[in-house]
């Protein structure tokens, strides 16, 4: 790939992502049980639209879109960070225990202590980060090597999964309420959830830009990065924790949405290469677009039933991932 080609391609992909962002927001505001035409959307946003439309947009669709954008951006950024520091093409927030830990805590909260279920985002978040801490601790031996982290992650995921399944069996009469959460969805997410994640998500997303330079150096290999003055172990640890924070934010309000963290960075990498100065922000944007688009499809395609967006993403993401795998070299 020539240098001018690469430059042009970065520009094209950027334009595509911005267009995708506008399209996804438009689709998310417009489509649904009641369609809101573009002219009415504009009127509502200007403040002089019909009240019925204004209610739909401000009370239901806009907050849900904003939550979706943040969730997608956090998940994709988390996956990109992890793929950068773990040297493992399968790295996604799942391997550092975010899903299993968040899932278990959510299960405990919803099934065993339903009176506290308003605390769900916080307990899921704590579960997600705590399991990352455990994995990192188990993998530690004068520094935690990526291979050990992956192996400790597999063990931890199995353990937490067993506990989750155990609770499901023991409380099988109450399981109905958590199935939607476990498959990951944005159904009913509103300003309350947006308020919870917005401040943390913005801070963490901004912090992730500080990981760009260290990750680019780690792409040369651990030893090369050390020879250029990097504290490789420290940097890797901080980036893993940051990735856990980001994915935990998404899990806390949207449940277990898989595949965004894995697929989006890979798609972007195939399009523009692995320079994190571009890969990271593009993934952020790509994740946001993908989740909002998929959610719009998920809630309208099977009307009147709303499909959890996590199911749709996995159903579309998995074949697409296999397609990429067959078509081009991924590692």
């Amino acid at each position: 790939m020539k240098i001018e080609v690469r430059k042009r391609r970065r520009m094209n992909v950027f334009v595509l992502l911005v267009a995708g962002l506008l399209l996804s927001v438009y689709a998310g505001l417009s489509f649904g049980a009641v369609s809101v035409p573009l002219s009415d959307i504009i009127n509502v946003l200007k403040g002089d639209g019909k009240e019925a439309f204004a209610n739909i947009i401000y009370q239901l669709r806009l907050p849900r879109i904003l939550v979706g954008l943040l969730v997608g951006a956090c998940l994709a950024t988390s996956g990109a960070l992890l793929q950068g520091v773990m040297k493992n093409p399968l790295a996604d927030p799942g391997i550092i225990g975010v899903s299993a830990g968040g899932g278990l805590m959510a299960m405990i909260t919803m099934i065993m202590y339903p009176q506290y279920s308003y605390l769900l985002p916080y307990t899921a978040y704590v579960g997600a980060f705590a399991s990352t801490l455990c994995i990192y601790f188990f993998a530690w031996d004068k520094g935690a090597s990526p291979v050990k982290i992956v192996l400790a992650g597999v063990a931890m995921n199995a353990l937490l999964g067993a506990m989750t399944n155990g609770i499901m069996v023991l409380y099988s009469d109450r399981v109905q309420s958590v199935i939607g959460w476990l498959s990951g969805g944005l159904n009913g997410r509103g300003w309350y959830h947006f308020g919870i994640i917005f401040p943390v998500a913005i801070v963490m997303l901004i912090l992730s830009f500080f990981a760009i330079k260290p990750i680019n150096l780690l792409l040369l290999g651990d030893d090369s990065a050390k020879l250029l003055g990097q504290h490789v172990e420290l940097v890797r640890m901080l980036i893993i924790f940051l990735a856990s924070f980001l994915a935990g934010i998404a899990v806390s309000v949207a449940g277990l949405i898989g595949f965004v963290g894995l697929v989006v960075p890979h798609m972007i990498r195939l399009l523009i290469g692995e320079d994190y100065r571009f890969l990271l922000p593009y993934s952020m944007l790509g994740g946001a677009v993908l989740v909002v688009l998929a959610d719009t499809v998920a809630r309208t395609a099977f009307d009147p039933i709303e499909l959890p967006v996590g199911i749709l993403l996995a159903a579309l993401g998995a074949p697409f991932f296999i397609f990429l795998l067959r078509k081009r070299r991924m590692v």
Partner: protein
Amino acid sequence: MQALETRNISFQQGAFHLHDLSLAIEKGKVTTIVGPNGSGKSTLFKLFAKLLKVRQGELVLNNESVYEIGRNDFSKKITLLLQKNDLMPNITVRELVEYGRVPYQRGRKGKTFEDKEIVNWALEECQLEKYQDRMLTTLSGGELQRVRIAMALAQKTDILLLDEPTTYLDIAHVIELMELMKRINQKYQVTIVMVLHELAYAGAYSDSIIVMKKGEVYTKGSPLDVLTSKLLKEVYEVDATVAFQNGFPLIIPNQTNQMII
């Protein structure tokens, strides 16, 4: 004067160990470390570059213990050309060489004019100006090795360690690389330390040779003094005659009378 010195260092990794090793690398010279496989050459280099840590003893750089120097400052003083990069990102030649300036960019944003000048200089010294916008994946082994050396030069260190830099290179590229190292050493007084397997090149291009055997220094000195048939016998268990022609050693096995360069 000594650039780098080890004082009674010990290190152990599995079955391999260095024990009570003391040696000194002279400043502004080309020093080559030779020895059979498993004699501890690469391990010693990783200790020099702080990729591994000694268990006992002192590692001294310009009269200062290397462990007192922060990693970033250290990377302005010593760098190591690894035997093989485990990873090679798909970027351009110039972008890789620019990574050599990273130790100088801590705490500030972007490249200064000086960074650009130094990158240009490194590319020029390695005759890579024409290649600077090529992607790394399109380069041959010899070209890639020059790019890696340019990156190490851009780091502007006083000491440059090269771990078997000639592996995988054909004879033309080996000579080109050795000449480049000699020139860098003479023009800029960079202390060059290499690990080489080819005794002939070690003899031809080094001011001094250190021979290692089983984690210990077997002998050291000028190529003429060190490269003898006694050494080949005792260190490599090879029966051969060593002859020097214009300062370039020839090693002739006694069994077959075949010449090895």
